[in-house]
Structure formats: structure tokens, C-alpha cells
């Protein structure tokens, strides 16, 4: 048997004697009450932190709202979109497509006429 094997075996034996040397202690009568005391203490210490965090968020939200309000008052109303109605804005944006749509509509209502933009449109 080599020296390494010998030491390996001895170390394995040592672990088992270490296991015996660390017996499982019995819990004291105060074991459970102390757990609940610690839980309560940790809950109490967490509560003020959460409250402070909530207050900080509320203050931040209020400041942001005020800043946006001031910004909207300070900036001039220059955009035409704000003055026009939704229908007017829609009509304005569709001028480019309107000629094509008119062609399609025409083809759908008169099937005997030849297709101006290719055959696939009316089939």
C-alpha cells in the first residue's frame, strides 16, 4: 500500500470520527421563541424602509408631473394636428394613396373594362 493510499484511508476514518465528535445538540426551550423574535424584529426593521421607499417614489412622481405640466404650459401650440379634427388629419395623410384606391374601386364595379395596372387585380 502506498503512502497516499494510507493517508487517504486515514482521512476517511478521520471524517467519521469528526462526525462522532460533532453530536447533534438538543434544541433549548428558547429555540422556537427566539426564531419568532427574530422574524418580528426583521419585519419591524423592513417596514420603515418600505415606507421611506414609497414616500420617495410618490415625491418623484409628483415632481415629474409638475415638470410635465410646466413644460406643456411653457411650450407654444404650433402644431396643426392639435387644431384639426381626427377626420381632417386622416384625409390629409391619405392623399398619396387615394388615386390607387380609386382605380381599384373602379375595376371592382366594372368587370368588363381592361385592367390598367396588371391582370392580378381583378381576378
Amino acid at each position, binding site marked *: 500500500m502506498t*503512502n*497516499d493510499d494510507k*493517508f*487517504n484511508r*486515514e*482521512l*476517511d476514518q*478521520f*471524517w467519521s*470520527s*469528526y*462526525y*462522532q*465528535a*460533532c*453530536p*447533534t*445538540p*438538543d*434544541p*433549548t426551550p428558547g*429555540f*422556537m421563541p*427566539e*426564531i419568532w423574535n*427574530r*422574524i418580528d424584529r*426583521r419585519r419591524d426593521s423592513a417596514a420603515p424602509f418600505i415606507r421611506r421607499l414609497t414616500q420617495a417614489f410618490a415625491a418623484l412622481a409628483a415632481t415629474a408631473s409638475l415638470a410635465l405640466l410646466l413644460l406643456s404650459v411653457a411650450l407654444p401650440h404650433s402644431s396643426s394636428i392639435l387644431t384639426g379634427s381626427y377626420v381632417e388629419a386622416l384625409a390629409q395623410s391619405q392623399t398619396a394613396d387615394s388615386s390607387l384606391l380609386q382605380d381599384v374601386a373602379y375595376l371592382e364595379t366594372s368587370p368588363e373594362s381592361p385592367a390598367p395596372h396588371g391582370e392580378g387585380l381583378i381576378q
Partner: protein
Amino acid sequence: MLVEFDLIKRAQNGDDAAFNEVVTAYRRRILGTVARLISRPEDVEDVAQEVFVRLYFSLDQLRAPEGFDSWLYRLTVNAALDYLRKRRRRHETRLADLSEQQVVLADAVAGGRAREQEEEKARIRDFADELLASVSEDDRVLLILKEVEGLSLKELEQIYHVNENALKVRLFRARQRVLKAYEASSSTRETTTAREATPREATP
């Protein structure tokens, strides 16, 4: 598992009585594991209580009750590691520890033979501490879980969330370091014994 799934689910839903039952079922196992991980009888209960407090606050994160055992082991490992790191930071000298332990033992054990046995156990624990000082706290805990607690690689995989090969490598390296420390201390002991056995030369 030492308890029913239903009990864990009730504890998860904030049932304090169910949590008490879980603690009662597991406290001896946790006390034993902590005792072997930290090898300081006077601090075992404190660390075990910390494990259960952590369990209380993290129970809602446990997805499947089947994984409760490895979850609890993980919490135990983390609490023991925190304790060991704190202990190292405090720079407790071994001499001070020994005298403190001896005082505790002297108070606790009255009979001579029982006292001798306790002192022998304390010596074994001290020697284990000496050997395990050659590895990091993480490796110390891993090594004890494997060699002393007898956990399988599969169980360790569930606790550490690391694949088996990585664990094997870590365990091998840690064991080699401890083995080297063991060899060194053995040869020191042999030399000391041999020196003590050699008769002193007579002074003129």
C-alpha cells in the same frame, strides 16, 4: 422529506402554525448539519435559528414543495458560510477559542471520564478546523457535506445548481489540499513522538 407537501404549502400561504410544525420536524437535522459545518457547539443554535428565519422570509420563492429539502440545505449552507466568513473577519485566535471551549466544557461536564471524552471530541474538532483551514470556506462546506454528511453528488448538484463534473473537480482539489495538510500534520506528529521517545543525553 420529513413533512407532507400540504404542510409546506400551508406555511407558504402564511400559516404560522404550519411553519412551527415544519421547524419542529427539521430542527434536529439542521442543528446536526450546522454543528458539523461550523464545529462550534456554542454557536450552533444561533446559526440554526438564522436558517429558519431565512426560510420564513424566502418560503414564497419555493416553486415546487418537492424541492424543499435541497432548498433548506441551501439555506443552511449559506447561513453557515456567512458565519464562517464573519468568524474569519473577527480574527478569533485559536488559543482564545480553545480556552473558551474548555471553560464551557468544564462547566458542562462534571464527571472525569465524560470530561475526557468531551476533551477528545474537542481535540478532533480542533484538528478538523486545522485541516479545513487549508481550503476556502466554500470548499470546507462542500467537503463536509460530501465526506461527513454523506450527501451524494446528485444531492449536491441540487443544492449548488452546478453540474456534477464541476463539483467533482472542486471536491477533488479540496480533498487534495486537506490530504496534504493531513500528511504534513502526521509527519509533524511522528517527529514529535520520535523526539519524545529518544532518551536525553546525560549532562556532565
